[in-house]
């Protein structure tokens, strides 16, 4: 079999993190080859390298046997590689036809040829079964699914010999259209690299798959030779599971936060209950509605339907301040952007939300402030000496602890933690876990989203699996494992244990 793409030892580093680590694989001409992996496995870096948007540090790519080292999108397109990006690359202020014909916009030398490219667009839309779109329509007016389809059609329209589809079904309500299109364009001359985490789709389309984990190729397999469980094991990697004390047989208290039929832009009919004394985990791949859910609970985003009840009472807050008054503290993932206030001391960062308690007649009293914050700093293992330092000088992990201390000091009863352990060191992770346990032991409740499935398994009382904006499965923390969660959050084998709450 002829090889169309050969990748050898491809490596790309960003600072201290290695996004791609000696990635090596080959793709047969005319095949549909899958690239699978969890969030952060290196899929998008690979796509960017193949598309010419990013130059790898070392390693080589060969296309039809010839060296392929594109340094711009134009160059990779010129070599017959075309990409439908997950982070969609359409321009909302331009029309459908303009987007489809960028950057050339007709064959004119100086002026664009609108009639020409609008006619070409109409032809493409008809050919690829998008009759609902009109060439002169602005892309900003399209739905997310329509934009995704347009993005794919645009990539196809360049008549590539290698087509990269990056999560092409992520925004589509069903795959019928996509599969129809692939059927239509398939030929011995066209190779498709299909990047997805939806194993069911991959099985339907692809013959072979390369599995990435932490920037490395774990294996390249013929899909007919492996069962789903094996693929999930390859993706998830049970090996780096640290032994964690599992919580078993805990009884939890009264409902703390009840979410019923919540709806929003990315949230569809979401219902769950968080109890007092409970650590409730949220497992989800990127973009399944978890971010919006957290924002709604934190008062930072308004639901379009459904109810939230806090402590048994229907809540009416619509601002973060209102959520705080209801006892809800939200620790966002982007600490730099939303959490810390740079330029002032760690101490001030901790006490800023509780100044009422540490000030006399509105003037913050240094000593009182210090004394008051000390127990909370201890609770999160934040060393006392950091309190007097500028928060900017602290490591990410210690900043995280300071933010947690602030939330505790506010006296919140409910903590919403959005991926707090991402990118922090093992020691900090451990203190985050301990803090959560202590917090819930004293009656608080924690809703915790983490991209690291293995830690959810270890720490949570229950884990909710989000998929396309709703809860598709729920597992007791001590009975589930990474593979099971992975299956559920990829929309695969979901529902087996759903509806147990």
């Amino acid at each position, binding site marked *: 079999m002829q090889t169309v793409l050969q990748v050898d030892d491809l490596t790309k580093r960003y600072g201290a993190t290695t996004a791609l680590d000696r990635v090596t694989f080959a793709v047969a001409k005319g095949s549909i080859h899958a690239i699978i992996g969890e969030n952060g496995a290196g899929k998008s870096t690979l796509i960017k390298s193949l598309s010419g948007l990013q130059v790898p540090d070392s390693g080589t790519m060969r296309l039809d046997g010839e060296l392929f080292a594109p340094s711009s*999108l134009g160059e990779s397109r010129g070599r017959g590689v075309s990409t439908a990006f997950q*982070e*969609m690359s359409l*321009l909302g202020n331009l029309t459908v036809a303009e987007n489809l014909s960028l950057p050339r916009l007709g064959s004119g030398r100086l002026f664009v040829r609108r009639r020409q490219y609008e006619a070409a667009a109409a032809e493409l839309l008809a050919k690829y079964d998008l009759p609902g779109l009109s060439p002169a329509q602005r892309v900003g007016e*399209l739905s997310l699914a329509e934009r995704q389809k347009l993005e794919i059609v645009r990539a196809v329209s360049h008549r590539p010999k290698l087509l990269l589809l990056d999560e092409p079904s992520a925004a589509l309500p069903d795959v019928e259209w996509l599969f129809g299109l692939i059927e239509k364009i398939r030929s011995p001359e066209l190779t498709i690299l299909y990047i997805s985490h939806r194993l069911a789709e991959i099985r339907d389309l692809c013959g072979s798959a390369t599995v990435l984990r932490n920037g490395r190729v774990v294996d390249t397999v013929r899909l007919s030779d492996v069962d789903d469980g094996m693929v999930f094991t390859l993706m998830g990697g049970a090996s780096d599971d640290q032994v964690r004390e599992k919580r078993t047989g805990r009884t939890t208290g009264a409902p703390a936060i009840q979410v019923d039929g919540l709806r929003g832009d*990315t949230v569809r009919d979401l219902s769950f209950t968080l109890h007092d004394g409970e650590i409730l985990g949220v497992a989800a791949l990127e973009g399944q509605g978890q971010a919006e859910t957290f*924002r709604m609970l934190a008062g930072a*985003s308004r639901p379009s339907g459904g109810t939230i009840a806090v402590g048994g009472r229907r809540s009416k807050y619509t601002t973060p301040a209102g959520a705080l008054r209801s006892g809800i503290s939200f620790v966002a993932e982007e600490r730099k952007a939303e959490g810390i206030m740079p330029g002032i001391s760690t101490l001030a960062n901790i006490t800023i939300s509780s100044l009422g308690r540490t000030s006399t007649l509105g003037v913050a009293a240094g000593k009182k402030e210090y004394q008051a914050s000390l127990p909370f700093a201890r609770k999160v293992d934040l060393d006392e000496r950091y309190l007097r330092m500028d928060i900017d000088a602290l490591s990410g992990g210690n900043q995280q602890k300071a933010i947690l201390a602030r939330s505790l000091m506010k006296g919140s009863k409910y903590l919403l933690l959005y991926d707090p352990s991402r990118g922090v060191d093992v020691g900090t992770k451990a203190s985050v876990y301990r803090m959560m346990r202590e917090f819930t032991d004293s009656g608080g409740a924690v809703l915790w989203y983490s991209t690291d499935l293995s830690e959810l398994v270890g720490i949570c009382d229950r884990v909710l699996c989000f998929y396309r904006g709703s809860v598709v499965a729920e597992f007791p923390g001590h009975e589930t494992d990474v593979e099971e969660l992975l299956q559920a959050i990829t929309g695969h084998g979901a529902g087996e244990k759903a509806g147990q709450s």
Partner: protein
Amino acid sequence: MRRALSSGTTLAAIILVAMYIVYMYSSIDVLTTENATDLLNNAAPLVISATGLTLVIVVGGFDLSLGGVVTLANVILATQTGGTTGSAAVGVLLALLAGVVVGALNGFLVAYLNVQSIAATLGTFIMCSGLALVIMPSPGGSVPEFISPGLISSVGPVPVSLLVILACVVAYLAFRRTRMGIHIFAVGLDESAAIQSGIKAAAVKFRVYLAAGLLYAVAGVMLSALTASGDPNGSAVFMVLVFAAVAIGGAKFGGGRGSAIGSILGAGVLAVLQKMLFAVGVSTFYTGIFQGAILIVAVLIGMISLRLGETRPRAVTTDQRALTGRPA
């Protein structure tokens, strides 16, 4: 209708017409050729600069060098001593060259070195102002006759200023039909998406700053025709008015939306306002207050009509973006 209203151009046109009607009623000799020419002469430098600035704003940048280039062009012309048409031509060429050089420097800094546009152009603005003082330490001098009164007079019955303004309109309309004319909107809205669509974003930005620099220099020449003399610190108010014209015209600071036609109409609004206030006997000291107020009102109306005309994009933001407020 909604869509038309939500475009800043329509709004600016309505305001301009309304203001002109008020102006007509305020004074009997508004429609004399002399008065009309005077108005056009006042508007021309604003119109040209606003055209250039609009391009920069649309592409997602900011350009403070405008004031510097205008001043530089002005003092270059005011220090041309020859008095002949030849020396005037040399002066004009030097002035335009200065604009191109400053524009190229801005473009290089912003597009290729990724310096924030406000910082880069603030730097070049200060440099230009400094250079202007070196060329001409104190106000005075006079510009060659070819410039003043040449450029504020008429060719037959048609004022030169009108020709210049029409040239701006025509050039912009033509530019909108070029590849660049569409690329600037793409880059201004979302640079990485533009790059992923195959657009060479850096080259687009560089050319925009270059073109803008040239246009500011032309504006400086026209302004010199109006003032007839040199002033090394004279452009601060002018620059603010150009920004106001662009804002009235509905361009979105931050990029991706705007039209030079809107900005040109915005410049017209400011010029007519000045005349109108003078005609109804308001002291010129108050002009600034009214200009500022008009700016705010126009932007507010623009925002409201934009909201009315907006078809809500359905869940365009991804979940991740919704959380962090920035691209994932």
